C-alpha cells in the first residue's frame, strides 16, 4: 500500500511541477503580449492625437476662410447671412422620383400598398 501512496504523491508532484512550469511560461508570454499591446496602444493614441492636432490645424478658421476666398470661382462660398434664411413654403417640392407616365401595374401582388395609395 505504502509504495502506491509514494508513487501517487510523486506523480502528483511531478504533474503539478509540470503544470506550474507551463503556467509560468504562459504568464510570461501573456505579460509580454500585454506590454506589447500597451506600447502599441500608446503609440497609436499618440498618432491619433497628432492626427487630431493636424486636423484642427488644417481646419482652423483662418485657413478655411482663405481657401474659400481662393476657390470662390468654383465653390462660391460666402459667409452665412440673415438673408439666407427662408420660409419652408418658399422651397419647391423635390421632383418626384417616379416617372409620371409609369403605367399602373395591377397584376403584381408582391408590392404591398400600391393599390391602397390611391386617394
Amino acid at each position, binding site marked *: 500500500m505504502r509504495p502506491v501512496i509514494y508513487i501517487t504523491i510523486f506523480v502528483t508532484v511531478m504533474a503539478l511541477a509540470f503544470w506550474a512550469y507551463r503556467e509560468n511560461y504562459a504568464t510570461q508570454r501573456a505579460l509580454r503580449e500585454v*506590454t506589447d499591446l500597451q506600447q502599441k496602444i500608446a503609440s497609436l493614441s499618440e498618432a491619433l*492625437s497628432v492626427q*487630431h*492636432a493636424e486636423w*484642427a490645424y488644417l481646419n482652423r478658421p483662418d485657413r478655411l476662410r482663405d481657401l474659400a476666398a481662393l476657390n470662390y470661382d468654383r465653390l462660391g462660398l460666402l*459667409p452665412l447671412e*440673415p438673408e439666407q434664411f427662408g420660409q419652408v413654403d418658399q422651397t419647391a417640392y423635390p421632383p418626384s422620383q417616379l416617372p409620371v407616365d409609369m403605367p399602373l401595374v395591377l397584376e403584381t401582388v408582391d408590392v404591398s400598398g400600391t393599390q391602397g395609395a390611391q386617394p
Partner: protein
Amino acid sequence: MTRTPLRPLARILSARKKGENPDKIERENLRLRHEATRDKSRARAEGRLLFLGVAFFASFALIGARMGLLAASEPEEAHVRASGSPILAQRADITDRNGRVLATNLQTFALYAQPKDMVDPARVARELAAIFPDMKSEDLLRRLTDGRSFMWLRRVISPEQMQQVHDIGDPGLLFGPREMRLYPNGMLAAHVLGGASFGAEGVQSAEVIGTAGIEKALDARLRDPGQAGTPLKLSLDLTIQATVEEVLATGMQMMTAKGAAAILMDVHTGEIISLASLPTFDPNNRPNDAITGDPGDSPLFNRAVQGVYELGSTFKIFAVAQALELGLVNPSTMLDVTPPLRMGRFNINEFEGKNYGPLLSVADIIKKSSNIGTGKIALLIGGVRQKAFLTALGLLDLSPVEVVEARTGKPLIPKRWPDIVTITAAYGQGISSSPMNLAAAYATIANGGTKVVPTLLHSDTPQQGPRVMSAATARAAVDMLRLVVTDGTASLGDVPGYFVAGKTGTADKPKRGGGYYEDKVINTFASVFPANDPAYVLLVTLDEPVETSGEEPRRTAGWTSVPVAAEIIRRTAPLLGLRPQLEVIPSDGLTAVSN
C-alpha cells in the same frame, strides 16, 4: 546477510584439542562484530553529515547568489499594471462647445548635451549653429568645453531639426521626449486660452503648466490625471469667435482704434460664446510680459476683463432700471433736464453742451442719453441704494470668469459715495469697471432680472441666480434700450430682423496724472438681441477710435462701436441659429390644411 557465529564449532573443537580456552574465540568474534557495527554506523553518520553539509551549502549559495544578483542589477519598475485603463500623464485638451480642438498636446523632443561624451565639441558647436540660427558657435563652444557634464540646448525641436541633429552624429547630443502644448488655431481666442510653458524639467519628461488665461485658472483641472482623458469643454464657439475677431479687427482698423474688445454672451446660461481682445498674440509663441510702457498697450492685455474703464453712458440704464424697480418713476414720467445741474461746486452738463430741456420723459432720457436726467434719477434713488444695486449686478467686484487675468481687473470705485458720485456714477463716470462686468450686468437685465454670472465653461442649463429686479422692470429696461437703437443714439446699430436693443457709452480717457484727454475716448456699445425675446448680449469696446468719413472726426460710440457691433450681430446671429424675424408672411391657406 550471513551472521558469523560467535562460537564456530570447528575452531572450538580444535582449540579444545590443543587445550586452549574456547571463550577467547568467542570474545574475539564479539569484538569483530562490534567493530563492524561501529564502522557501519559511522559511515552512515558521515554520509548524513555530508548530505546536510551539501544541502546547507547549496541553499546558502543559492540565497547568496540571489542576493548578489539583486544587489548587482539595475532597479527597474514593475512593467505590468494590474488594471486595464492606463493613466494618461498628460494635460487635458481644451475644446470649444462643439468639440473642436482649441488646445492639445503634441509629442516632440528636447535637445540636451553631455559634453563629457562629446567627440568633437568644435564641430558640434559649428553644426548646431548652422541648424539653429539663434545659437552662436563661439558661445556654444565655450559652454561645451567649460567642464560641465550636462546642458540643455533646446526645449522643443521640430522633427526636421531632430533629423539634422541626428546627422551630426555626436554621442554627446541626446534627445528627451516632451509633451508640447499646441494651439492649432493660432491667435484665435488667445486671451481666453492664455498659454502654457514647461515647469519642472527632467530628461525623460517635463511638466506642462499654464501661464495665463484659462490654462492657468484651471491648471489643477487640466493636470488632473483622472480627467486627462476628458477634454475641457469651453462655452466658446470657434466659428463665431473667428467671425467676431475678423469683424472686430476690420472695425478697429476702420476706426483707427488702438485696441478693441468684444464679448458675446448667452443671457440664459451665462456662457461666453465669444471673447475677443485686440491686439492679440499667438499663444504658441507667447511674448514676454512688457516691462516698459503701459501694460494696457501690450497684446497680452485682455481688455475684456483687465481693462477697467469708465464705461460712460452704458451705465445709465442701471439708474433708470433701479428707479423703475423702486417705483420712483415710470417710462413716461417727465423730468426737468434744463442744464446745468448744479451740485455743490460742480456743474453737470450734457454731451457737447446740448440742451434737451425743459422736460424729458424717462424713456427719452435713455434714448437721448441725458446726463442731467440720469443724474436727477440717481439723486431720487440715493447713493446707498445705488451702490447696493450696482453691487448686486456684480459691477463693483472682480469678474468671476475663469481666466487668471480676471483677478487683476478690480473695478475702481470711490471710497466715499457723496451725491456728486451718485450723479456721475449714474452716467458711468468716476467709477470704472471691466467690459466683462458690464456684459454680465446687461445679461442680468436681458435675462428677466435674475443675476447672470459669466462663465467660459460649457453648460446647457439656464442659470437660476438671485433676482436683482422684477421681470417687468427688466422688460421695460429692454424696451427703452430698443428705443435707443430705433430712434436714439445707436441708430446705426439696427440689424433688420434681429431687433437690436442697446446703449452707447462714450467716456473720455483719464490722464495718468489726473484729468481727461480732449480727443481720446473709449467707446462702448452694450447691446441685447433680439429685443422681443432677449437671447444674447454683445458688448463692443473700442479704444481711441475716430470715424473720419464726415467733415469733422467723430468720436462718439454711435459712430464707431455701434456699426461694428451691428456688423458682428449681422454675421454671428445666423451662426447662432437665430432666424431673422421679418414681416410675417401669411401662410398659404392651402398648405396650412393638413390631410
